[in-house]
């Protein structure tokens, strides 16, 4: 069973209840910023397009093939069977490769702690295991953030787009982005207009490095054999040249 979110920006009224609920469940301090940080796992931003106020959420997309999981040298990120991408803080050494690599710029760092960790939305993994739904989805008064099984959410999104053609931009963001995610966003405008990445953004990013990484055993085996062979041939030749030979080419046996 894989869960996810469906976010419908046409239903969002910008009340920020999800933000408050998130701060509360994750025991994060009060924060007035509208940007993701180690103290803010989700934000509601807004943009006015054609006299229409559009509110939209930013949070971890819980990718199917997460870039953070692929780049982490100690495997601190895990894509759980339930859908959330979670972080094992006892493994992390703080190299911040995940922060550089994440195509959605989600993981954030505790810059002002002497023993920092990486922080991001966990889809309330703990609550899911307890049989509850994520705090933000529970708090949402309008149903702009829906939590449920992915297949069901995709169906709902498709139906909404089909039934109200004038209202929706006909695209489900997150279905294929970065190889597919667990957070689907539908909106009245193209998500590109809201600042989401759309161009050349369908493939999973982990493939970019795996293409090279998978060749490593070949490189090691090939170069190992090649170098050993090379040094053997060259050294043997030099040794042979150093052995004195008589006129007939026969080896002169050393005295003693």
């Amino acid at each position, binding site marked *: 069973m894989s869960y996810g979110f469906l976010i419908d920006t046409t239903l969002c009224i910008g009340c920020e209840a999800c933000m408050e609920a998130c701060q509360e469940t994750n025991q994060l301090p009060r924060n007035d910023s509208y940007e993701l940080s180690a103290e803010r796992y989700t934000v509601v931003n807004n943009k006015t397009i054609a006299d229409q106020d559009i509110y939209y959420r930013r949070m971890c997309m819980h990718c199917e093939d997460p870039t953070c999981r692929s780049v982490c040298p100690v495997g601190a990120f895990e894509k759980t069977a339930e859908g959330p991408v979670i972080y094992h803080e006892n493994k992390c050494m703080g190299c911040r490769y995940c922060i550089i690599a994440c195509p959605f710029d989600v993981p954030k760092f505790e810059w002002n702690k002497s023993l920092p960790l990486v922080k991001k939305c966990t889809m309330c993994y703990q609550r899911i295991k307890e049989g509850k739904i994520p705090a933000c989805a529970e708090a949402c008064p309008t149903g702009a953030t829906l939590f449920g099984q992915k297949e069901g959410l995709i169906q709902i999104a498709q139906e909404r787009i089909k039934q109200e053609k004038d209202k929706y931009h006909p695209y489900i963001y997150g279905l294929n982005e970065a190889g597919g995610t667990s957070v689907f966003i539908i909106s009245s405008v193209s998500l590109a207009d809201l600042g989401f990445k759309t161009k050349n953004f369908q493939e999973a990013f*982990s493939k970019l490095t795996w293409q090279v990484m998978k060749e490593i055993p070949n490189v090691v085996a090939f170069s190992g054999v090649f170098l050993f062979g090379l040094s053997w041939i060259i050294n043997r030749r030099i040794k042979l040249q150093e052995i004195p030979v008589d006129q007939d080419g026969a080896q002169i046996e050393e005295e003693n």
Partner: protein
Amino acid sequence: MNAYTLASRFHFRLTFWKGVFIVLLILGMYSTFVRFFYGLGTATNLSDQFPWGLWIGFDVLCGVGLAAGGFTLAAIVYIFNIKKFKPIVRPAILTAFLGYLIVIIAILFDLGRPYRIWHPIIMWNPHSVMFEVGWCVMLYTTVLALEFSPVVLEKLRWNKLLKIIRNFLIPLVILGVIFSTLHQSSLGSLYLIVPEKLYPLWYSPLLPVLFFISAVAVGFAMVIFESFLSARAFNKHLEKSLVSELARVMVFVLSLYALLKLQDFARRDAWSFMFINRTETYFFWAEILLGVVLPMIILAIPKIRQSEKTLFGGVLMVILGFIMNRLNIAITGMESYAQADYFPSWMEISVTLMIVALGFAAFRMAVKYLPIFEKKDHIEIPYRKQIKIRKVENHQLQKEKISN
């Protein structure tokens, strides 16, 4: 030993460079304190928008690259068996060893939780480029320590251990070449994951290959550079013909790099980025002209190459161009996406300077107390003088025989 000689032995004279060293050490220690007690946010200008800065861009990317002379020269001498380069192997391996120690120290500064640096040993993720780089740096530093150990063992006269290590020298060198090939290129692969963040002048699927070739070129440059510095500091230097030959090899490697770079731009059809009026364009051209085009011209023309000063200039350009390339990838090329004007804080700079200064000091000590530059191997003795010396020796031998 009387009191006077004992005192003169420990006599400390403050010279200009010693003064600089002490100042760098004090500033660096202060920044170290701030970094570890108040966190990266206080000590550095890094942020969530710009999580990797000077320590990764210079200390790690440049440090590893500048140490590449260690594996290339070891390969030339022990695998290709070109024995005439043997006198340069030791300084090259020493530089590489110190270089990697510098890199490891820098990583300890940069990691959020440095005491977990050993985690990749037991927590595996073969998909991660960083995982592979970590393993290779660990293994190659071990190889370098073993490759360097004969120097220390000779001094200590631990002949049994020396013999064992000498027997394993060729397998060690081969392992070193493999590890180096892997992680020199993998430092480039680190950036394959950010196609939309790294500016198109630098992002390329060929990054691993470009990183490897440029590291080979700069490895040779560093060997020549050191030999010049050592000549000034210790009056120990390399034979001119060897340096000149290495310079010729560098021209070959640089032209290979240039060719690949052209092919890369052709393949990505990215020519137009070369001529946009942007900061990145200027940094790109500075890097290419300084690090590739000019030194290729200087080092390719025999007349210019033969002059010590211009040769030194050409080599210095390759090194500076290389450093620019790595900093461009780690910093300049990432700025426009991050929309953050990152410039290292004085504390970041002071930590880097302290680590580099410690490296220089360690190199100096090693050259002073260990047989790094072997006298008989590299100091050019004019032919006539050699004969004279031999004559004198013969004369003495005969005298001794007679007296016996």
